[in-house]
């Protein structure tokens, strides 16, 4: 999430000599990332990224707190002018004697709402906001509506605590029952949309049984502020963050307020927000406090204390940071620091209890403000860690084969591991043999492949018509990737077997593909008896896939050496008429029964007339042509 705040607004709370650009640079290095500074009128707008554990700095006061800690590290002054968190409390609110307006509040489960506060401001005049509020809100990307609604938004950006305002007179029976919603209950929210609730959401029902608020997310239309509103109910709460998150995710109603509440807010922040809100409403709407302060706060959180030694910082960071600097940084961030000798007792401020748990969290606070750019850079000492042989082989051979196939003129492709139903069916495979994604973005990528061939077939098909800067005949593609073979049954499943395969597809001819596979075998010195896997012919696209582990298991780094010998090699040609009962394979198996045969070569094939060349030789003695002939005649 990002928030926008302005420079002048920040200066309301912060006394500093840093320019907007310096604030952007220094805070980004040590704290919140300020993604941009934009000049609007005589003010500057910061666009700030809020990381998910630091909702506490998603406000002007939150950024001021960071600035107080960070800017001095760059030689800039930064002090709070007035810290509204300290300045504003319930004692500021003058509650008159005659409080006509009352509110009956019932919270069915205290867990829903750690802190509930409300107060009525009566006799308000709905009008435009003062220009400073209006301009700041617009600069920060928030629409200006009227003085009351604008003040609630202004409070949220100032202090990081979302606030709601009701038309008090629309809360029937002055009664609010905060409870969990029932499944299917409906509420029309401020934006005039009807939301059907999944159940278990935090809602408020008024005395007439109407839902008036989808708490923490959006108020109900029936009780919203209108031009006719006389009495305003200012409403400041914190909620169970898990419930807020569930509701906003399941209903799809994502509001700025929800992005705050779902991260868990500080109940202590509620009091200054309400007090500041009362001041602004009285000042800019002409209203006056018309009720007592309702504050339901059953369990004030306990103080969070961390005890750690100064030694931890040096060990984790790698440099010794002076104790004084450590104390200053933590104090400026709002921590209460007590120390004796080597031990630190740190009280975590209430607005940081959600993200500070362990000493490492404190180390991070000190290290970042000290500045990661001030930490030197040095490689860790080298040590030897043994790489498992099977992992090493996998990567070494993959790389070797990729380079080899590239040199043969093939193009490597990487396809998605997921394929579509129709690709599976076209490939003659069964849907039920595949693992399926339950939340696939598209039916194109719904199933995990158990074969590389459907993807390769698709690649060839899609590339056939492409005009290329290359007239090399045909397409020759390969892919080395995992396939995912399911393990188990419908009830109990294990993780699938992830097996690497080499898939090759060409649209030239059968012999081309077979030759490529044989060349791979030769490159890896794989013995001749490993047969070429089945080659699929699909409308002129020839494809095959090989289990990668089989290649590794059969490969030899260096082929078996045959001693050189000075004896003659006799070459003889012979022509065979081949037929299904007399294939090359049968002929060569027969021929190799001869101990003198070293090699067979195909010379020509014309129709079914196959001419082969036989190389006969003996490593022990010279053989004669007649010796060779008699070997060949045995065929």
């Amino acid at each position, binding site marked *: 999430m990002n928030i926008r705040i302005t420079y002048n607004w920040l200066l309301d709370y912060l006394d500093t000599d840093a320019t907007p650009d310096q604030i952007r640079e220094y805070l980004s290095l040590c704290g919140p990332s300020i993604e941009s500074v934009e000049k609007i009128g005589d003010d500057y707008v910061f666009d700030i990224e809020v990381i998910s554990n630091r909702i506490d700095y998603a406000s002007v006061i939150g950024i001021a707190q960071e600035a107080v800690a960070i800017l001095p590290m760059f030689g800039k002054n930064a002090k709070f002018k007035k810290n509204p968190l300290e300045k504003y409390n319930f004692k500021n609110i003058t509650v008159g004697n005659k409080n006509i307006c009352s509110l009956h509040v019932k919270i069915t489960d205290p867990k829903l709402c750690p802190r509930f506060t409300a107060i009525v401001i009566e006799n308000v005049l709905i009008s435009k906001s003062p220009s400073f509020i209006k301009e700041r809100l617009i600069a920060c990307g928030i629409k200006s509506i009227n003085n009351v609604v604008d003040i609630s938004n202004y409070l949220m950006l100032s202090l990081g605590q979302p606030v709601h305002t009701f038309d008090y007179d629309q809360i029937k029976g002055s009664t609010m029952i905060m409870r969990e919603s029932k499944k299917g209950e409906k509420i029309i929210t401020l934006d005039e949309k009807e939301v059907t609730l999944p159940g278990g959401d935090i809602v408020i029902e008024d005395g007439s049984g109407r839902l008036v608020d989808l708490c923490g997310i959006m108020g109900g239309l029936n009780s919203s502020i209108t031009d006719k509103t006389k009495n305003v109910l200012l409403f400041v709460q914190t909620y169970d963050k898990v419930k807020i998150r569930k509701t906003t995710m399941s209903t799809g109603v994502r509001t700025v307020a929800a992005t705050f509440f779902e991260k868990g807010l500080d109940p202590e922040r509620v009091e200054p927000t309400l007090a500041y809100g009362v001041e602004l409403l009285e000042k800019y709407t002409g209203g006056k406090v018309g009720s007592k302060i309702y504050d339901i706060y059953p369990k004030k959180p306990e103080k969070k204390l961390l005890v750690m030694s100064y030694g931890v910082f040096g060990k984790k*960071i790698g440099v010794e940071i002076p104790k004084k600097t450590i104390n200053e940084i933590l104090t400026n961030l709002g921590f209460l620091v007590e120390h004796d000798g080597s031990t630190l007792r740190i009280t975590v401020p209430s607005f940081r209890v959600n993200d500070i748990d362990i000493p490492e969290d404190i180390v991070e606070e000190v290290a*970042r403000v000290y500045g990661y750019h001030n930490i030197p850079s040095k490689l860790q000492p080298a040590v030897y860690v043994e790489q498992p042989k099977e992992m090493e082989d996998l990567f070494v051979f993959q790389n070797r084969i990729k380079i080899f196939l590239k040199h043969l003129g093939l193009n490597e492709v990487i396809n*998605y591991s997921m394929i579509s139903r129709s690709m599976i069916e076209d490939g003659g495979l069964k849907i039920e043999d595949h693992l399926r994604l339950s939340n696939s973005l598209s039916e194109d990528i719904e199933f995990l492949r158990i074969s590389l061939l459907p993807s390769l077939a698709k690649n060839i098909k899609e590339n056939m018509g492409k005009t290329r800067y290359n007239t090399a005949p045909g397409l020759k593609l390969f892919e080395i990737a995992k396939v995912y073979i399911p393990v188990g049954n419908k009830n109990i499943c294990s993780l699938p077997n992830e097996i690497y395969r080499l898939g090759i597809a060409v649209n030239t001819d059968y012999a081309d593909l077979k030759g490529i596979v044989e060349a791979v075998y030769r490159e890896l010195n794989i013995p001749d008896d490993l047969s070429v896997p089945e080659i699929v012919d699909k409308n002129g696209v020839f494809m095959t896939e090989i289990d990668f582990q089989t290649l590794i298991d059969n490969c030899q780094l260096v082929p078996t050496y045959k001693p050189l010998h000075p004896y003659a090699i006799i070459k003889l040609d012979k022509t065979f008429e081949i037929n299904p009962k007399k294939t090359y394979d049968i002929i060569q198996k027969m021929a190799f029964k001869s101990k003198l045969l070293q090699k067979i070569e195909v010379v020509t094939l014309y129709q079914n007339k196959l001419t082969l060349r036989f190389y006969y030789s003996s490593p022990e003695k010279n053989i004669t042509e007649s010796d060779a002939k008699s070997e060949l005649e045995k065929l």
Partner: protein
Amino acid sequence: MDDNKYIEEINSAKSQEQLSELEIKLLGRNGIINDLLSKIKDIPNDEKREYGQKINMLKTSIDQSIKVKKIELSKQKSSVFFDKTLPGKAYPKGSIHIVSYAVEEISKIFEKIGFIRVSYPEVDWEYGAFESLNMPSNHPARDDVETSFIDVPAHLKLGKMVLTPHTSNGQNREMKRVGKPPIRMINISKCYRPNWDPTHTPMFHQFEGLCVDSDINIINLRGTLDYFAEIYFGKGTKTRLRPHHFQFTEPSFEVDISCNACKGVGTIHELSVQKKCRVCKSGWLELGGTGMVHPNVLKEGGIDPSASSGWAFGFGIERVIMMKYGLDDIRNYYSGDIRFLEQF
């Protein structure tokens, strides 16, 4: 017999063709020499010997002259123009996927400082993808990591089956495989998230570094990042860490590298006008997330966080390719388009 006439004729030949014609005319079966030899029968007997010797000498000198002239002519340019600027014989040139190149390059960079490349499942349980990384179920941090689920019954203890949304599932597995530190791991793998738009593909690659030892600190992480950036992106490339938040590291950082286009300044001079650098926002480019391994992650991997510490990072391969080579249309990576593939 006019010996010199023949020799002169040979010497004045202008081309190999002319020379071949002469050779046939003089030395061929019906050539002059044979003709002269056949006339020997008409020579008086006592002159026959001298006549024969003379003809043989002539034959030898013609033969030699032709050989010499042949060599001479072959040194001259042939009459048909031979264009040496023509390309040589065309050998096939295939291609390797740009991601494969990057994977190899990155593996080698880390291999030099003792990191071993490992291989872990791409389909894992939620435990491996989240719980083992200090991300309990229902934690909002899981939102930042959108996940693709597999449609099978969940494991009673380990949760649902998922496509790994990051390579970090290798952390817990490597800790358990090694048993005790030191760990120097580089895990490169396919990852999956349900995002498909001009800048995201539902499958992508990450490389994950994990270093655990008795005294690993932020200095070592910085050292490793600087080492990687200088070798992969080029000498002089700088890194910077910015605070961030990840559940599995504490402290957590985002790493930026200095932009090579503007040398980290953020502006470039174009026709003597100072302009904002088009490649980066402000002199820096975001590389990815990193941090010191969270004690809970070490504990979950069976490593005592009071005795060991570590750092980890996970960066996108496509992202570093984009930053290094400017190949920014990531959708082409996995479309299988031959016009894209064959360029590498």
